[in-house]
């Protein structure tokens, strides 16, 4: 592949953020926070009626999008802001845009704007990532 400044990265779409997945992430994170497990706990906090996806799970979608967009690349840095929640059953889409290219053919580097958007609402993660791509031969 030959990325160009301004290119939009191929999106990773999650059609249905699964409450079952949140239960699994509660185990990965050793975090039994009921906001991720029990809709009644979410309602009691006045945050809505559906369980809330873990922030790192949302970030994992962005990372997997980058890995899919640039196979074999190494992620060097990632800097993100968590600007909103993702709720159980929502559809989200991770994507990004190429901002800078540098480093030459042996170790080409790329800087991208990245985001995760809840399809019906808007951005939930925004940020930037830098990657070192496989050498161009």
């Amino acid at each position, binding site marked *: 592949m030959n990325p160009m400044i301004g290119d939009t990265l191929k999106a990773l779409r*999650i059609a249905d953020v*699964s409450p079952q*997945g949140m239960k*699994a*992430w509660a185990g*990965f*994170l*050793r*975090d039994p926070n009921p906001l991720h497990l029990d809709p009644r706990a979410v309602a009691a*906090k006045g945050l809505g009626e559906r369980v809330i996806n873990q*922030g*790192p*799970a949302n*970030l*994992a*979608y962005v*990372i*997997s999008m980058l*890995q*899919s967009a640039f196979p074999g690349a*190494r*992620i*060097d*840095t*990632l*800097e*993100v*802001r*968590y600007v909103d929640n993702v709720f159980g059953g929502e559809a989200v889409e991770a994507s990004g845009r190429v901002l800078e290219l540098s480093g030459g053919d042996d170790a080409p580097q790329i800087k991208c704007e990245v985001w995760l958007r809840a399809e019906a609402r808007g951005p939930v993660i925004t940020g930037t990532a830098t990657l070192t791509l496989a050498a161009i031969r």
Partner: protein
Amino acid sequence: MDPLKPLPDAPSVAGISLSGKTPYVISADENRALCATIGVAPAEDGSAHPIYFYIATQIGMGMTVAELCKTCDFDVEDGPMITSTKVGFSQPLMTEVLYQVTGEILGLIRKLSRKLGVMDMLEYELRLSLPDGTAVLKTTNVWVLPRRHLS
């Protein structure tokens, strides 16, 4: 809260160690299960999903999130909110490898927010290294701790 009245000081916690005592290992089985929740295949070369930068440091640090909140005189039940994360990788994360976590609290800054009232911004840095000290990554997280009882 009277906006003209000075805010009480935030607890003094900068410099408190978050270094873990027990090494963290990314299980290949767990990595496979995590990748399944995202709908992607695990890497065939033994590397872990890069999101383990967050998981490994968070679990391997010397405190749970609840204990970290308590150190800041904050009850985790009051709803801490992560607001930003940055990470710099020196090398990829691998499954079935021992990792050591070191780190410390960088600061706790009290602010008055129009939306949340009085809140503290907690910033802490965690580093992951191999047992021989080789650096693997450095990450910084910022959390908002809403201090509703002060608002």
